[in-house]
């Protein structure tokens, strides 16, 4: 069917081409090209949606349009819909914890503005050559995902070079402004993920370029926490808070998915998964799918799978609490190395370790733990070798805990 449409389109193109080409009217030719292209993109969008069927449930049941946000972020979606009704939007800053649906909202927003063509993306590794100073040239490699209407990058991947990246990308986008069917100069959208991890310099650079090129492109910033985004940048954007979904909402989504997958989901299991997910929708859906694979028909008492690294950290925490000695410290060091090597971010290790340690402590000690964790995580940001700071935290905890134990028994 699509093939037929394409064929018609091509046919049309050639007929008109003959008409126009003879007059050598070039501008009308390009217009025609655009017209044909828009027909093609409309066609392929159907194809695209059908290919979602095979991926993970998380991706399969991601809302494609803002209308489809029913249980989670419904009000935000409504507001956004109103906002972009005229086909334009200000700079936006989405913030909220991981798994709350920021990215989904952005993608839905894009397709609401530009139509399904926004979903026709390609991933590529791009290299930019940037003149840092008059003498030095910097090369930056970054992965981008782009459609005709937007580019998505994660500038923090570029490390300390991130400031060059954001400026360069925006400049590049400004150079190639799209022209719509009516011949009006349109705009592109630049989606920057993990904005809170951008360096201060990069954010300052962003501030400048945001204003300079605002006619050619809109920025959508995505961040976990708004605190790490500069005040100046924040004030230039319309902040959109995406709250973590409540357990009830997550349950609704899970039921929905189960119904679409033609599964019977027992309520106990559903609430179990929802609670387990700790208000992280992504985690909830993944866990549900893992449950499905592990055991079907579902049992109410079925266990919900957690992640390997979390269990490992829990194990480490138990070991630390069981014995405080240099030998144990050395042993734990090996474990932390393993976690780090398996690409678990150090901050996450701090956070999780802190959580599992404080689980079994009284209130006074909990304060201590959190204080030390915060201090050493801060040091980690300043320093360069994660293992040193994590171990310093563990040693500090061991000392504090031991002192506490001794005083309690003495």
């Amino acid at each position, binding site marked *: 069917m699509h093939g037929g449409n394409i064929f018609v389109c091509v046919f049309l193109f050639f007929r008109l081409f003959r008409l126009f080409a003879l007059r050598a009217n070039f501008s009308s030719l390009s217009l025609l090209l655009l017209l044909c292209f828009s027909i093609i993109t409309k066609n392929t969008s159907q194809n695209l949606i059908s290919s979602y069927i095979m991926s993970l449930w998380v991706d399969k049941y991601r809302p494609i349009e803002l209308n489809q946000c029913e249980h989670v972020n419904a009000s935000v979606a409504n507001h956004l819909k109103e906002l972009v009704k005229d086909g334009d939007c200000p700079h936006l800053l989405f913030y909220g914890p991981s798994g709350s649906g920021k990215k989904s909202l952005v993608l839905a927003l894009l397709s609401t503005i530009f139509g399904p063509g926004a979903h026709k993306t390609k991933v590529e590794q791009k290299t930019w050559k940037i003149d840092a100073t008059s003498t030095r040239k910097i090369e930056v490699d970054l992965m981008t995902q782009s459609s005709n209407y937007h580019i998505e990058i994660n500038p923090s991947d570029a490390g300390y070079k991130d400031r060059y990246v954001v400026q360069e990308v925006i400049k590049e986008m400004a150079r190639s402004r799209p022209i719509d069917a009516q011949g009006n100069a349109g705009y592109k959208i630049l989606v920057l993920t993990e904005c809170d991890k951008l360096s201060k310099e990069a954010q300052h650079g962003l501030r400048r370029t945001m204003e300079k090129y605002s006619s050619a492109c809109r920025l959508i910033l995505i961040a976990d926490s708004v605190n790490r985004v500069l005040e100046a940048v924040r004030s230039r954007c319309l902040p959109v808070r995406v709250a973590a979904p409540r357990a009830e909402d997550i349950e609704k989504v899970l039921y929905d998915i189960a119904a679409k997958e033609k599964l019977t989901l027992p309520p106990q299991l559903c609430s179990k998964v929802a609670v387990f997910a700790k208000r992280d929708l992504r985690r909830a859906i993944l866990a549900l799918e893992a449950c499905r694979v592990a055991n079907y028909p579902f049992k109410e008492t079925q266990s919900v799978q957690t992640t390997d690294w979390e269990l490992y950290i829990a194990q480490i925490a138990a070991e630390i609490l069981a014995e405080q*000695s240099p030998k144990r410290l050395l042993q734990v*060091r090996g474990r932390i190395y393993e976690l780090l090597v*398996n690409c678990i971010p150090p901050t996450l290790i701090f956070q999780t370790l802190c959580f599992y340690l404080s689980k079994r402590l009284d209130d006074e000690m909990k304060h201590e733990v959190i204080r030390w964790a915060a201090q050493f995580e801060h040091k980690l940001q300043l320093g360069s070798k994660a293992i040193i700071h994590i171990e310093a935290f563990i040693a500090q905890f061991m000392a504090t805990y031991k002192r506490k134990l001794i005083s309690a028994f003495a």
Partner: protein
Amino acid sequence: MEETYIDEDEEDMAFLAEQDLDDDEENAGGATQNPPGTQDLDWLENEANGGATQNSNKRGPSDFEKNNTENDDDDDGDDAEKAAAKKKRSINPTPSLTEEELAKELAEKKRKQQELERKERELELELLRYKSVARNAPPLLTSAEAVSAGFRVISVTDPKDSTHRVYLKVEERPFGELDGDSNDENDVLLSENQLARKKGKRGYDHARATINRIHLLNEPINDMLMEIEEKKSAALAASLEEQANRENTMPTEEEMRSAEEEETMSVEDFAEMQRKKKKIIELKAKIASASWLTKYAPRKFTDLISDERSNRELLRWLKMWDKIVFNKKTPDQMMNHSIINPSVMKASNGQNRNNNYNNNSSKYQQKTEELYDASGRPMKKIALVSGGPGSGKTTLAHIAAKHAGYRVVEINAASTQKSTNGLVEAVKQAVEMRSVLESMKGISVSTRSDSQNARPNCLVIDEIDAIFGGNEGKGAMSALLKLANGTLGGKKNSNGPLNRPIILICNDMYSAALRQLRDASKLVRLRPPLAARVTGRLREISSKEKISSDPRALSQLAETCELDIRACLNHLQYKSLARGKFTMADAPISGESKDVGAKALEMMRDVYRGRHAFMEKTYPGPAKHFSWMYDRLETFGDDNLLLESTFENLPSAKLNDSTMEMFALASNDISNADIFKSSKLANSTDYFYGQIASVHHRASGCSTMDSVEFPKIKTAERELQRKREITKEWMEKAKIDSRSISMRNSSSVDVLPYVLTIIAPDVGRAAGYDFMSQNESEVLKRAVDVTRSAGLTYAKTSSKGSFDRSTYSAGLQLQPAIDELVKYGCGVPGMVSKPISANGAAIRMSREEWIAQRNALNDERDKLRNEKLVDRRELGPNARELVAREVTMDEIRERARSYNPEGVFTPEKGGERGVEKKQFTNQNVVNLPQSAAYDEMKKASNARLELGFSGGNKHRIAASTKPKSLTTVGVTKYKYNEGFTNALRRTVYMKDLFPGMVASKDVEEEEGEKEEDEKEAINNKNRGEEAMMV
């Protein structure tokens, strides 16, 4: 099945061994020109030849005659002199011969000489004629002219035919320096002078003239001398032996030599030569001692001490080019030939050998198809050899290429220009034509090098990780890839696919720059050699060098150098050369191989222990520890190493501390030190040293220090880098729809653990969709979909050698290997270290202790491995194969869909995956190696079974298989077998089992069978009762 594996292996081995043998023979053949003693020094000659910029022609000793005649036209007097001398000499070696014989011999010699003189004259004329045309040749000189032009004329006599002389061109240099012993070359020349002195005053005079550098004609002078002497002594020895035989006594070599000495007039000359020879040998040894590394570099494939499996893997890959390069059969074909072509089978009269192969023909067939592309080239046209420094990558590449019959052309990527064009040009040149240098040499190549030049090139690019960075590097890499695929320069310019093998060498296979290349090339990961082999080689060398070495010291050397043979040899040579022995005291402590390492360990001992008497003296006052330490740290140099090793050794330092408070404070200090090191503050280095000195202060109560360890943070960082590459690859390969994976850095943290569960459902025995319950097949189908959309598949890991048969079927691994990212409890590879005692030597444990410790370690690891963190299933080998196949099939379907949207093939109906028959053009066939492999496999198995079961009437085989192979020309039929696993399924008829019963109806059945085959191809489900599984 096991058995057949062994057979294959044996065959491979046998084949390789044969090759080895052949090669050895070849070598032996080549060696006759060089006396065996000089072989070790080949490199020297080569270097000397290469290094000198002379316009000297390459001439073998046999060519002297020609050269001499050029310059020799007025040397008649000399000739006469020599002839007389020769007469004398020719009598001398055989004094005990009878008069008759002597006379005969004399006559013979005379005749020969006359003949030679005649020839000489002819040649002279010819050469004169030739010379006038030659381009760069020096003008013809008389000997006098030659002398005045700075040639020194020495005649070196040969006992056999002494009509030849050697002319050497000599560069000018003040004579005074000759006396210095400093230069080895001078020594050689001195001996040269002595020779000249003996020969006559003319030579002596010219020896007194200025000499520095011999412009060698072909080989270094001493080699030529050696060779001549060798011949001479051989002749003498032969005559002596003859004599001895005649007298029925068997003199030992010693006696022979003494006999030689005793030869009065006649042997005096020879004795002189002997002495000189000895001296030369000594000198040579001196020269050779320049580096044992090159002296004892492996020369043959069997000399290599690197990991055997990797070696063979590379060699095997090289051999796969044989069909293209040499038009020979590749090893796989050689072994398969009898099976593929039944007529050959018949011809070979079906020995037992063949029957063995029958069983694994299909496996071979399948493998062969996987490995070769349509044109018979290997699928992977580039080999990427990786390994740590000193693991012998370059040596392996060179030797394997030589062994496989190639001439190695090496491009050092680091030294060539970084530009794409430069590299590509160089590569093209090397691959497509003879190198420029060689064609220039063209005219005067000697026979030996000629045979070498006739060999095809094999390109070796060293250190490619150095070039493939940044934009330009990317260009270079894509150009290289294109070259490999034969698409460089568009359709018009392309010279077709690559015709010669290319071997790339890098340190780190997983560096980001090489990602693209990794997919396209055969990966050979060179593991470090076995410790036993390294020490064995070290012992061998030390015994050759007459160094008494302590085996324990050698093994420690090997260990501390981390099996880096280069470092080992350098160390061994450096430490033992002066004293002629190598003892425990000479063996380095851990880390000393890297210079700073030793210092670092010493430093650590000071940080965690040190209270030195002198410290008290130099730094009086209360802050003495601190100031002493601070000064000491400041002079150390490598801050990073300092930080890392301080951190590394903290827990093993026995701080006098039961409350852990000191540990907390010390690690806090280290944490601060890290901050100051990374900080850009002006005084930050001062603070950094201050923090480390503070660690020393905390540890000042520490009295003992069990062991000092070299920091291992680097190892962890490398491993992290490797795993990051895996995730990146995964993110790139995931389908765009999989938003939760692509473009998300954290996907390895939150999505990965679930994905691994989801793609590994419980599918029972996974025998195929037919045998599964509704739920099972649904789950599996879903798993396949997810696997595919997540960009995963199962593939045979390329790092495992193809010789490793045991893992062949079970070795299907996730690709990209994301399952490695959830491995916990086994430790980071390469991070477990051996304890080292306080004085720096590795703690020597008794064997029992060591075993006990190892077992304890293993137990702990096993425990952790068993208590799986997440209860996650793993797909069995069958299911993996099934999923891998389904993923491939899905890819094919999708491609077919995009290729022909109307849909040629029947769509699936209601989940039932029937047999699909599809037709593709040949263009697509190339892209689908796997399905082609299966098709071929089926065919091969048909042939095999027919062969196996048809017993007596073999004529049927030829009849029934021939038409089949004919029908496959042009269009390839793809048959998709539901539930395909490793086991083969095919139809066997009762008549096949009982040939005697139906022998009379043979012809009819043949027709019938053909029809059956056709039918089977269309629908293999309707098999009827007579079908059974095999």
